[in-house]
């Protein structure tokens, strides 16, 4: 029997900055038995416009996304924050009587962040992989508080042989990225990032993992500026065993 038809929404950040996260996602979905497609018309989910108060612009972007992804059984994103935009914000963008409201709600129901999709929806045992490393996991805010993602990535990581998970203090506290926040109030954002890298470094872990590239860019960029020893990766890179690619913000 063929698996569900799953559309991967790679997200604009992954597409532009770190395609290897997209490939790791495809690999994991295929291994879980999904029939994976990457719709060509995809661009951005509209979160920047929505969060900046551009309701009309965001709704327009949402309508495009809904049209593009409607035909699939599931939409999966390697980002809790973009997934939360579709799941939580799209329905709020349209008035109850607007026909787009029902379409937004239908898409919201079928949209998932990747670790929760693998763990909760597909429920498959992950492929047996090994990585000798100590890691710490940063809970990105939207994934954690809008979608309740906390235990799923940790459960999947627990299946990786040789991997040691060291929880950091304040794992659930924002890293300071916050989309446009990081350039609107860069000094505050930088201070928050510094608190985060301190917590990561205190664990002594080799790697910080997270489910959102925005946060990872922020943490990796701060760590590099500070000359920290740890590296940063998206959680799917470890789960898919694609760690031959250099870590985020690194060349080796």
């Amino acid at each position, binding site marked *: 029997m063929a698996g569900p038809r799953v559309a991967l929404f790679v997200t604009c950040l992954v597409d532009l900055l770190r395609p290897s996260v997209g490939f790791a996602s495809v690999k994991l979905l295929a291994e879980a038995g999904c029939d994976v497609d990457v719709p060509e018309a995809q661009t951005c989910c509209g979160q920047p416009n929505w969060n900046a108060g551009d309701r009309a612009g965001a709704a327009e972007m949402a309508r495009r996304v809904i049209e593009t992804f409607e035909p699939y059984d599931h939409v999966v994103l390697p980002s809790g924050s973009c997934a939360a935009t579709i799941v939580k914000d799209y329905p709020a963008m349209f008035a109850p009587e607007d026909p787009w409201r029902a379409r937004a709600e239908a898409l919201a129901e079928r949209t998932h962040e990747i670790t929760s999709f693998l763990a909760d929806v597909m429920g498959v045992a992950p492929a047996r992989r090994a990585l000798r490393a100590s890691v710490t996991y940063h809970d990105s805010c939207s994934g954690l508080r809008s979608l309740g993602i906390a235990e799923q990535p940790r459960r999947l990581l627990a299946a990786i042989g040789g991997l040691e998970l060291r929880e950091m203090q304040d794992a659930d506290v924002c890293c300071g990225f916050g989309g446009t926040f990081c350039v609107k109030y860069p*000094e505050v954002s930088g201070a928050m990032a510094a608190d985060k890298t301190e917590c990561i470094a205190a664990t002594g872990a080799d790697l910080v993992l997270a489910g959102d590239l925005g946060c990872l860019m922020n943490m990796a960029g701060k760590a590099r500026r500070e000359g920290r020893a740890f590296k940063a990766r998206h959680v799917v890179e470890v789960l898919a065993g694609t760690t031959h690619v250099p870590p985020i913000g690194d060349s080796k």
Partner: protein
Amino acid sequence: MSAGATSAEFRANSRAALADANLQAALRGSRGGFVQKRAKARAALPEFDALRDEATALKNHTLAHLDHYLEAFEAQVVASGGQVHWAETAADARAAVLEICDRVGARTVTKGKSMISEECGINEALTAANITPVETDLGEYIIQLRGETPSHIIAPAVHVTVPEIETAFRAAHAGLDPARDLSRPEAMLKEARAVLREAYFAADVGITGANMLVAETGQTVIVTNEGNGDLTQSLPRVHIVIASIEKVVPTLEDAATLLRVLARSATGQEMSVYTTFSRGPRRAEDLDGPDEFHVILLDNGRSALLGTEFEDMLRCIRCGACMNHCPVYQAVGGHAYGWVYPGPIGAVLTPALTGVEQGGALANASTFCGRCEAVCPVRIPLPRMMRSWREKEFEKRLTPRGMRRGLGLWLWLSRRPKAWRFATRTAARVLHRMGRGSGALKRLPFGADWTATRDFPAPEGRTFMEQWKAMKR
């Protein structure tokens, strides 16, 4: 009273706050304490989250019938011999306070902690009328000595370090032995008590706020940990309560529900040390109490929020949990917010009460991490409301021009996948090359705000979509 507000300069304020070593030391010292205490209190009460739902529902019900409950409250206050003064604006509230003080010939006024008093600028008004206000809450007393405003709604002096308090005490209590030991907080507490005792007996009028107003009984309720509120309101001849209209609750039972979530959310206590219910002036059979009991009910823009997307914020019970859990507040402290209310609740109240032109900057001072909403005892959707303020800014074209243009271009590109692909391919290549094989950029063109404090990880070089297309071919 929004004169003197500097909320619009949040960026400059926050920069200064980050550079202030004393402030950073104080913030670091207090950080996490409230968070852990609340978590512990929550864990110890299995029905805590159910109580939050109950508290939310009862506040919603009250707001839906606010006029009814306020009138009921007024009738009860009058029946118990007190007076109610309706203040539409902060100026009305100041006038009401001054009128009472003038009539009774007040020279000294003791004050319990009240954010509404801060909102109305009562101390400034009293001072201008040659009446001496004396703050009796220890934190408030400290900042009064330092000529400051509160930086936190329940811990007003959280930004002050212990050595700074000692300095303020030595300067203010010049009559005391200069050789006395003030190195321990207990010594300072004792000294403050002794000084304040004089003020309690000298005071003609005592002003307190109210955590709640009970409609069925006409009682006002305050919670404190120092007992200063009790002395403030029972020793002088006149007790003035100054409270905003949304503080009313229907019944004592409802007050009890809110009390159960209030202290737990605020300080992690099951109950504050003192919870005081006041009703009317002293009766013939009472042993003590004031001769006059006045309640000033302040609107100051609140009723205009009813029925709007901002109504939810009127549920606020001022516990401070949102700021205790806010990483932005924890990084810069309360004064950076530039007006009376800091943190997430300030970010939604300030634009509402002072205008979005002034307060809009605060609605942008959030990563939408959602921690505030997750802990708010009355489940106020704070991030959603900050977003609504950003919508108002966008509608009024207050969003900075560069940001508007960027968003417009982003939207334009998002509708044209071909142009989008071309732009992303180009950007990926250019930025990759600028990384010069090191994997990151030290400086980003058009992104100096990012690279001022961190490197920018370089793109891998080719976009996902172009690689995917090539593979599929």
